[in-house]
């Protein structure tokens, strides 16, 4: 167990390190990192300042050490688009909006997926099951960004029920959260279905039925409680996927979170903000993956490295 966790932690550190090398290397891919880091309209002072700041007149390995040391302290440089703000400051400022969206999307997808998955398992091979399969297939085939725009068209433009973009109250959350959670519904549903099928077949369920416990109670209480373990660990993966999925959803709905920040930064060539967001996102994503593996190994002792 300890060995497994240790290996996984090391591996995660390595992955983050690789990500930092990629970001570092890509900034220098064209020869002069200043070309990448600065937009065309940058002033000579900016060039001077950045060279000083990142030690760009030094050899590459020293530059990398500078980069990693600063990054480890949360220092990714200054934003060029938003004058006077640090890249990390922007990240901290935007993070709550993204967490709010991702959290709500997770909630919605769980509320939708668990009942559908349970029903699909109980009524296996029925029309209900087939319909659930179609939903799952659609979930994998619909482009998320397109779904978002269509929802916006129907509910904001056409019916005028919900606001089309921006952040505000609960009403602003609904469309982006459905868009973001949609893809996950399919995944959770299939997982719930398959683990429910396994449990429904087991002895204790038969015993419960024989004892005369009402069927709804057998399904929703006895079975679901036992079938819930696998999907539960899956939620951590989903949290990671959702977080990076916010990049697309936030762009569609101009939701002022990290995803929109990074896309805007790419468009205006604000590279220091790009690298800050990417490293932070990668960090969270990899951390989620690590958490899943550890949790899983803890719950299922058969998994060994």
């Amino acid at each position, binding site marked *: 167990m300890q060995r497994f966790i240790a290996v996984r932690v090391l591996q995660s550190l390595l*992955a983050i390190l690789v990500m930092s090398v990629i970001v570092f290397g*890509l900034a220098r891919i064209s020869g002069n990192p200043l070309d990448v880091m600065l937009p065309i309209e940058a002033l000579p002072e900016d060039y001077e300042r950045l060279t000083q700041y990142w030690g760009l007149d030094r050899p590459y390995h020293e530059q990398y050490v500078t980069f990693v040391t600063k990054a480890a302290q949360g220092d990714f440089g200054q934003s060029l688009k938003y004058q006077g703000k640090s890249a990390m400051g922007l990240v901290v400022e935007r993070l709550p909006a993204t967490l709010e969206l991702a959290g709500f999307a997770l909630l919605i997808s769980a509320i939708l997926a668990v009942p559908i998955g349970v029903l699909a398992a109980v009524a296996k091979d029925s029309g209900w099951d087939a319909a659930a399969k179609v939903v799952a297939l659609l979930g994998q085939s619909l*482009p998320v960004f397109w779904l978002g725009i269509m929802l916006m068209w129907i509910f904001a433009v056409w019916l005028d029920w919900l606001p089309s973009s921006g952040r505000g109250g609960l009403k602003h959350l609904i469309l982006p959260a459905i868009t973001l959670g949609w893809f996950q519904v399919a995944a959770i549903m299939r997982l719930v279905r398959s683990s429910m099928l396994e449990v429904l077949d087991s002895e204790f369920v038969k015993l419960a039925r024989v004892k005369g416990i009402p069927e709804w109670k057998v399904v929703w209480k006895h079975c679901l409680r036992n079938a819930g373990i696998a999907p539960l660990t899956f939620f951590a993966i989903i949290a990671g996927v959702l977080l990076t999925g916010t*990049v*697309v959803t936030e762009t569609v709905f101009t939701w002022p979170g990290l995803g929109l920040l990074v896309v805007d930064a790419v468009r205006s060539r604000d*590279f220091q903000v*790009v690298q800050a967001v990417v490293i932070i996102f*990668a960090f969270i994503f990899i951390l989620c993956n690590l958490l899943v593996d550890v949790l899983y190994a803890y719950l299922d002792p058969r998994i060994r490295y």
Partner: protein
Amino acid sequence: MPQLTSTRTLPWYAIPWVVDGWRQVKRYPLLSLAILVFVLVIPAVFAPWVAPHDPYFGSLSNRLTPPIWQDGGTMEHILGTDKLGRDMLSRIIYGARVSLTVSLIAIFVGGIIGTVLGLMSGYFGGKLDAVIMRLVDISLSIPTILLALVLVAAVGPSFGTVITVLIVLLWARYARLTRGETLAMKERDFIARARVAGASHTRIMVRYLFPNVVNSLIVLATLQVGYVILLESTLSFLGAGLPRAEPAWGVMVADGRELIVTAWWVSMFPGIAIMLTVLSLNLLGDWLRDHLDPKLRNL
């Protein structure tokens, strides 16, 4: 269909034609094949002959013409025009070409890299195996979209950028799959005999191991085409894929985003093209998997 004829009364959701239609679609991939041919293959191969207009140029006086069945629609532009007056249908047709080219190149190159590394990893084992498998783990744990965003921020959007991103993402699955199958295979008698007969390592890998994994690889590749098309269009939508002027489906949906109040058709139709393509590719992939290689169920 035993459960349909059972004594239980049918609940409202167990509509027979849904169940039945679904089975037919599952059993014969004809419908998905037909959709693929008409939405993806024919447009992609014959784009210059099929497309009624130039996908890159339009006249501004025709801009935002609605599709034919709406007020103001014309025969000239069946699916309407975008904000630069370019014909939507022609752009969607050329978009099929873009999607198909990008995904095929990416899967082909990524597949070759992954297969070669996987064969070597499984066959030679040892340190090489350890190194390659760590690389696979790392590559699978890097978030896709972020990698693409950094790359585009550094070198700008282009065909090359998208394909590079996709290859970096795709190779790992092929490597993992090939390695697994190779490991199971290399202890078998026929490999030992080939070895005794004096076959070189390269020959064993190419002539004896590769043909035995090729089925699984084909299934994986088919299942991935849809995923790759989806990924490419997502990247293009974000401005991190193909350049703004290209008639790529993702770019077109992005163009329509700001126009959603006035011109819904600009983002609607390319999205439908993506959905139909990916949906039928997924169905086809499922079918192929069940027939060629049932053990890949959990891929």
